[in-house]
């Protein structure tokens, strides 16, 4: 079993295991990591104690305690003792290039390719249905997720995943949307790497515009091939980077 140092929640290995086996502790850790990545929780901010955390997330105190200790071990939070003590979101906690590179090199080319195929299948299905069901308000929301070329890599990464989630929302299929969310969690911080490359940002920016236009014009085939091209651009970039190591 291949698990990343950060634990199973962000590991690509999770793609080969049933959802249930991820466990509640990983689920809680995943939620907190996600809250940090989306800016809901920021560095230096105090986290609730385990009783409050357990109540808020509807898990047992034991689960909350284990999750906090797992987050501490992976450097997401730090703990201070004493009167002003407690758990805080650590500094430099945002996904870093180093961490993403480590994750990339722990994966085989086969795993990356297989994940990309799955991602393409689900995203293309969403895009095809979205092109049938879109209205003007949907398109306005979708376009609001297209980032500007000079946005930093973290916001690009977030915008790309939000864009595809919005395509799933326009498709109005709960199953496809859930599957897409799971695939994005499996991809983890990997997608940060290409977003630092301006060439990649330029290429994908054009594709995002094309996908939005196809969904607006009710052209399912064009929308499907657009999102496939988007994911292919990411996979090609990752595999090229991966090869440099050998």
């Amino acid at each position, binding site marked *: 079993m291949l698990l990343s140092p950060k634990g199973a929640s962000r590991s690509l290995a999770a793609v080969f295991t049933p959802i249930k086996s991820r466990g509640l502790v990983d689920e809680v850790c995943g939620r907190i990591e996600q809250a940090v990545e989306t800016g809901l*929780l920021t560095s230096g901010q105090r986290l*609730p104690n385990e009783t409050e955390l357990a109540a*808020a997330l*509807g898990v047992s105190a034991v689960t909350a305690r284990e999750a906090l200790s797992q987050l501490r071990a992976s450097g997401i939070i730090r703990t201070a003792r004493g009167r002003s003590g407690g758990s805080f979101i650590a500094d430099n906690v945002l996904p870093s290039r180093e961490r993403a590179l480590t994750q990339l090199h722990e994966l085989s080319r086969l795993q990356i390719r297989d994940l990309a195929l799955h991602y393409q299948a689900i995203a293309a299905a969403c895009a095809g249905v979205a092109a049938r069901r879109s209205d003007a308000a949907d398109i306005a929301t979708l376009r609001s997720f297209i980032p500007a070329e000079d946005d930093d890599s973290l916001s690009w990464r977030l915008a790309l995943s939000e864009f595809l989630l919005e395509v799933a929302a326009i498709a109005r299929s709960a199953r496809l949307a859930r599957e897409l969310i799971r695939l994005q969690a499996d991809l983890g911080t990997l997608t940060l790497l290409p977003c630092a490359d301006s060439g990649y940002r330029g290429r994908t920016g054009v594709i995002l515009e094309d996908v939005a236009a196809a969904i607006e014009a009710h052209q399912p085939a064009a929308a499907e091939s657009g999102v496939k091209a988007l994911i292919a651009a990411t996979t090609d970039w990752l595999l090229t980077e991966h090869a440099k190591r050998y």
Partner: protein
Amino acid sequence: MSETTSTAGPSAASAKRVPVEKAAGQAAAELDVTISGIEHRLAAWAAEAGSALAAMSGKVTGTAVDKLIRPVVEELVQLPDGYAAGAGFIANAGLLGPERSYIAWWQGPDLEPVDALANFSPNSISRYVKAEWFRIPVETGRAHVTGPYVDFLCTDEYVLTFTHPVFTRPDGLVAGIVGIDITVQRLERGAMPALRRIGARATLANADGRAVVSAASDIDAGDLAAPDEPCRHYPVGRTFTVWSDAAGL
């Protein structure tokens, strides 16, 4: 039509005497009672919550909000044959802090808390201001129905969210919203018998003309549809319509 005679009614003989249109009208009225019932319950809840928050005279805390909202949510989601999959309250900026919102929302019979991690964020209001179910009742001061849409925040299910603004003073700003999530799946079970009595292609649609439940096999929930004229239009709740005959777009 075969529907009107074969549907289980008081008796086949009396069903034949009832004109098709009258039977369809009765079925549509049942749907209206269901949807209007949800809307009225929500409006009453908004009024109660508003007075209770006003009585806290500016000292509103998360714990106090939970205590106020949770019993109502419990009643709504545990109602036998009820439609609510989840319900709750979301504070507008200003009620608990300048940039802070507060979410007191639960889902399912076990009252699983929704998005509660956001309550530990000082800028949690940013999470809701763009969402249609929050933004529209806050901006207009009026009730709103969002959806059907896939609810990423709560259930990841296909739902309708009914929301209503909460006021602590009649002329004041919107203090927050109360809302009820209804899954399309539950609504479908409740609405299909009535739709079948109205017509083989009868369709319940939202204000945008999007199908919520349809008796026709080629119109799915979420599809854009239109009345296939000439057909009868029945208003259902504040914003929905049933078309006795519909076509997918």
